[in-house]
């Protein structure tokens, strides 16, 4: 297994915003060009730091949305109500602005196609971001590792990367995606319409006998419920890795 190549103190690097992509009404992807970026693994995150003119600083962690791509780092940020950093990143930050970041951080919650599978991904809301980095790495790879994703969102409007996931699931034989929209569903909706529960996991995830590598990401309550249900379905707890975002998400 690859070791993450981070050595020494984490230094703050200065990146430039090269693109901004509206994913949903409240979620935006920020494409950064970061000289000296040490390369990252899918699943890792970065810390972003903002400094006001009077020296006041605020810092938050965001999952990296893209697989390793030289000096390009993409973070997908969800607007947090009454937040301090996300309203700035989503509402104010412009192409050409500079921003400080450090990382990559997190050698535990990582997966690359070289790690093999089968892989079970379960995402709640913006918990999909690090898992999308894994799926995008899969799409770029020659290895046909079988991957199943179950992703939960409140509605179609709040589902991130919807079009890309649909495109990838039809172009990749080894990727299966199931969706649940918990609050509002379009009239022709074919997916699930409730919160993730054991039955839904039983229907959409690899059987325990396949011994999949599991990655669960999202708000703390969501991760607890899903992890407990996967264990109840017979999965080995040691093969389930979790990344909790806290109460409100990333």
């Amino acid at each position, binding site marked *: 297994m690859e070791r993450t190549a981070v050595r020494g103190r984490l230094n*703050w690097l*200065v990146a430039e915003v090269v693109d901004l992509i509206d994913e949903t009404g409240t979620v935006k992807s920020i494409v950064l060009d970061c000289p000296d970026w040490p390369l990252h693994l899918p699943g890792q995150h970065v810390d972003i*730091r*903002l*400094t*006001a*003119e009077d020296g*006041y*600083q*605020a810092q938050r962690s965001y999952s990296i949305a893209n697989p390793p791509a030289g000096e390009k780092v993409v973070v997908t940020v969800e607007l947090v109500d*009454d937040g*301090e950093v996300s309203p*700035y990143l989503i509402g*104010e930050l*412009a192409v050409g*602005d*500079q*921003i*400080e970041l450090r990382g990559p951080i997190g050698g535990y919650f990582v997966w690359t196609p070289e790690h093999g599978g089968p892989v079970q991904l379960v995402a709640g809301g913006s918990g999909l971001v690090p898992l999308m980095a894994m799926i995008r790495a899969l799409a770029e790879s020659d290895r046909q590792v079988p991957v199943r994703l179950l992703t939960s969102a409140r509605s179609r409007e709040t589902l991130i990367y919807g079009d890309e996931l649909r495109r990838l699931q039809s172009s990749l034989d080894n990727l299966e995606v199931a969706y649940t929209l918990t609050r509002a569903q379009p009239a022709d909706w074919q997916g699930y319409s409730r919160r993730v529960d054991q039955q839904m996991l039983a229907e959409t995830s690899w059987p325990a006998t396949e011994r999949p590598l599991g990655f669960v990401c999202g708000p703390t309550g969501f991760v607890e419920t899903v992890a407990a249900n996967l264990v109840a379905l017979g999965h080995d707890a040691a093969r389930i890795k979790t990344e909790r975002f806290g109460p409100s998400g990333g």
Partner: protein
Amino acid sequence: MAIISRGFKGRRQEDAPRDRVPPGQYVTNDFPVLSAGPTPLISLDKWSLSLTSETGQTTSWTWDEFSALPTEAITVDIHCVTKWTKLDTSWEGVSVDTLLDGVQTSSGFLLVESYDGYTTNLPLADATNGKAWVTHIYDGEPLRPEHGGPARLLVPRLYLWKSAKWVRGLRLSSADQRGFWEGYGYHNYGDPWKEQRYAGD
């Protein structure tokens, strides 16, 4: 040397009443739930509060006995060292003065213990004469476990880590003894108006 983030202002509250907001704090309408560990769940039939004097003499109250004590309704501002301040929070509880009624003591310090093993410490003078309560009602409702229920200490004049949640015991002591956060590098006293956040401030 950090670069300046164009247009970033952070939390700026021009309309916050500065005389009520200690230095470095911002006003929140939330009530953040912050804890060093899992929320203990204590059933009322097993709950008790003990008060131990420096001579070892102990008084204790069951929930029924505690509920029979005279209470006060208070509205206070609370300040957390993580920089949020919440104005006009309303509580109901038993004054520490009431708990100390009839207890002979010459001790100078109050050591506080919680059900999850948490501890904190403060001068007795900062817990008496109407400065501290053991509260069990917040905003008109029974205090919820995530905010310290069934009962928590409330010492509004100091940073909120001194207002121990899930309070179980109060110990009068002649010697000061650092509690959990005081021992890990937070200020021993914790006056928000002097911004005494960390040891050495």
